[in-house]
Each structure stands twice: as C-alpha cells, then as structure tokens.
C-alpha cells in the first residue's frame, strides 16, 4: 500500500442503493432484518448466489432461499487506490454454505486481507435503499 494512499481520509464511498425487482424484493426485505439469503435447490441440492427464482444449475424451480450463517473465507481481493474517497477492497468471499459472493472487505486493516482469511458478515446502509451485505475480517 503506498504511503500517499494511507494518508488519505477513511473511505466514505457512496454505496449505490440496490435496484430491487419483483424477483429479488424478498432478498432485500430480509436484508432490512439483517439476514443474508442464498438460494438452495431442492431438486439438485446445490446452493447458489445471488438467489433467484430457479436453480441456475439444473433449472428447477424447486428453490428455497435460506439464511446464510455470515461466516466466510476470502477467495480473492483487490484494494483499489484510484478512488477519490480513499482505498477500498473488493473481494469474493466463499460463504460457509458454498457460493462465492462479490463484496467489499470493510472495517479492518485492508493490508491484513489475505486469501483464505476468515471473514464475517456486516451490513452497511446504502444511499436511500436497503442495507448491503459486506464482510470484515473475523
């Protein structure tokens, strides 16, 4: 991490309000209650993310949305320095339940982020919309 970037103020990056549609409304309603949902197919027993009304693997509509534990590990990451609001870290984390989820790693020393590091769910408010699931180092 460059010295110039470290001296910058903490990130106050605008978090876009998630665009809610008819299919995903219940995901964002659960988010309001602090629950992260993923899809689980009762036909092929495969979990998926982001959750949808069908299984993207076997195409069955016998899908239920389950609450994730919020425990995960870092699959990959990149800390972005070309940002007017300071560095931020985009990542894929692998949920304990299986799917790899795009997110940001927040509220921790970004230099400590490593592949395989344990991470846990935190929620952040968005600009006028539902809260958004983020992760921090556990």
């Amino acid at each position, binding site marked *: 991490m460059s010295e110039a970037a470290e001296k910058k103020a903490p990130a106050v990056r605008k978090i876009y309000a998630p665009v809610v549609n008819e299919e995903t409304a219940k995901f964002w309603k659960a988010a309001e209650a602090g629950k992260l949902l993923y899809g689980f197919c009762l036909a092929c027993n495969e979990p998926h993310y982001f959750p949808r009304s069908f299984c993207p693997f076997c195409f069955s509509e016998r899908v239920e949305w389950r609450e994730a534990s919020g425990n995960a590990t870092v699959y990959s990451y*990149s800390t*972005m320095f070309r940002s007017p609001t300071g560095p931020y870290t985009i*990542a894929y984390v692998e949920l304990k339940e299986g799917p*790899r989820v795009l997110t940001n790693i927040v509220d921790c020393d970004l230099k400590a982020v490593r592949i395989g590091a344990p991470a846990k769910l935190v929620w952040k408010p968005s600009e006028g919309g539902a809260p958004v699931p983020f992760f921090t180092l556990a």
Partner: protein
Amino acid sequence: MSIKGKAYVMGAFEHPTREAPDKSTPQLHVECARGALEDAGLSKDDIDGYFCAGDAPGFGAMSMADYMGLRKLRHMDSTETGGSSYILHVGHAAEAIAAGKCSVALVTLAGKPRTGSGGPRGGGNAAAPEAAFEMPYGGTTHNQYAMCATRHMHEYGTTSEQLAWIKVAASHHAQWNPHAFLKDVVTVEDVLNSPMIATPLHRMDCCVITDGGGALIVTSPEVAKQLKRPRVKIIGAAEAPKGTYGGKVDLTYSGAAWSGPKAFGEAGVKPSDIKYASIYDSFTITVLMQIEDLGFCEKGQGGRFVADGNLISGVGKLPFNTDGGGLCNNHPTNRGGITKVIEAVRQLRGEAHPRVQVKNCDLAIAHGTGGSLGTRHGAATLIMERE
C-alpha cells in the same frame, strides 16, 4: 459446417488518431469504414453485410447503416461482447458468408473515451439481473481483473515481475509504431515503480485510454480473388461466454479455455504452429491467463512463459501485439478487439513494421476477452492463414 477457408479478411484499417476532440463518434466510424474499403479496393455499395457492437451510436446496426448510406445490406449483426466483439464479428461474418447471406462484410468500431463522453460501458446496466448484487461494491475493470491476478498469484506463484514483462514486451514493439500512444521502452522496474492502481496491478499493467477506432472487410473467396491485396484466409473461429455461475466463481481461467481449443480444432493447427499472436491486453494479467488458456503453455506456467522477453518479436518464442497493443499503442473506445485483428492481418501480409515483422508469418491468432475477467466476459478466438 465449418467456416475454414470460406472467407477472407481483405481490408483492415486502424484509425491513426488517439485523441479526436473535433470529430464525432459516427464520423470516426465512417472514417474507419472508408479506410478499410480503400485498403481492400472496394467501395461502399459493395458492402452487403454490416457488423457493429455497443460502441456504435444508435439503434443496433440500423443507425450507423443508415448514416453511412449502406443501401445494399442483406445481413446485420450487432452482437455485443465488449472489447472482443470485433474478433467475434469476423467469425460471424465468415459464417454468414459461408451460408451465402452476404459476400462483403464491414465491421466497424469507433469512439472517444479520451476526449469525449467516456464511451460505452461494458457489463450491462441497472436492469441486469446481477446489478443489485454487484454495483454497490465499486467494481471497475481494474479491480475486477486485479482479483484474477491476486488469485492467480496465490494458486500458481505468478509474480508482479512476470506480469511486468508483458508490458515490457509491448513497449519494445510500440517504439517502432509512429502512431503509438506510448512509444517509450520501459523496464520491469518501471512497471513495478508505477503507481499502484488496484492491487496487484500497477498503472503500467493497465492499457491506455484512447480515442479512435478501426474497421475490417471480410469477403467471400470469390470477391477475395478479384482484389489486389494479399489474401488472409479465416481458418478457425470460436466464441464462449464465461460468468460467475451462481457462485461457482473461478478467477484463474478465462473463456479462452473453451474458445481456443474449438478454434484450433476447426483450423486443424496447434498453438505451437502459430507464428504471431494478437492477445487482448486490457491488463497484463489478461494476456497471461489467455496465453495459458489458449494452450501456449501449461496452466499456471504463464508467468514463466512471458518472462525474459519471450513475447518480444525477434527475441522470444511467441511474438505478440507487435503494434504495441492496448498496453502501449491503442485501445480505441476502451475496446481492443479490432486492433488485435488488424495487427494480425498486417503480420500475415508482411506489412508490419520491419523491426517487428515476424519472418515467414503464415499463421496467426487474434484472441480477445470482452467485459470483465472477474465477473462475466465474452471470449473470441480467430485463426488466420496467409494464402
């Protein structure tokens, strides 16, 4: 049905501009079309097939076709796969020509992200099904491709020094290109000392942002034989999408792992037969992963393969992007697919700069990744032969 030998790239034009504050995007498209037609020795009314992608302003192919006055069209295709679209369009043009749907196909790309409105943004919009689950996280091309580099380094021990060699090779080529946006030869140290953009990618791991464009003319064998230009025969073409697969994300490979073998299979050649390779270089990591996935080396060995000048024409085993590529020469409209085909055509014609021209260059590949390597992208592979 195979497209092998059913169509030829007979016109290729790269707009010389890299900054076009005084020209409109449609105007750049038509200047590119004119350049490719003149190169081929054809005229506007010979065109009966038109191919464009998301950079073409307006309503699919219709606005540009109407604006340019293309009155003889009987085939149109505006397939959009980001920067690889134009490589894919050549394959689609060959299919259309093989099926008798057109005989002279025009492909255009143009735009002005440097001085204009920023150009098209690949990767959909707020109505895309993935948008709500990705847009809040500040994903950019830089940090999404960078995550692939992070994972590749983790799994295979790839280093920043190895990635830097890709930029070094491109810069060695760009010094001979009078139109190159960046003409200075750089070292591995220069790359590593350039500012960090998105870990682990430095500024010099990233391609340039330029205005401009390019165009191609693809014709039937009958038309090709009437023209005076060297004949560049299309012998293999394939495309493949790759995505995030419901959470089964794997950032260590690209869609080239599927399009490459199909194109090589159609052409009936092997990676080791290739004399020159145009490999999409949005970022250094893009090149490394595609080289592995196309089979130029074993998976995971890309870092070793690209090091020590192995991609430099006249020095290494796989001369690549001899125009300087997107890393140094040109990445018009944030889309490098068409320049990949154009430099491959120059090499096959023997018309590359003498300092980078590959000797006896009779077989070349152009391959691209459009969209985001870190989420979803379209891979396109094209194999061409000098006749």
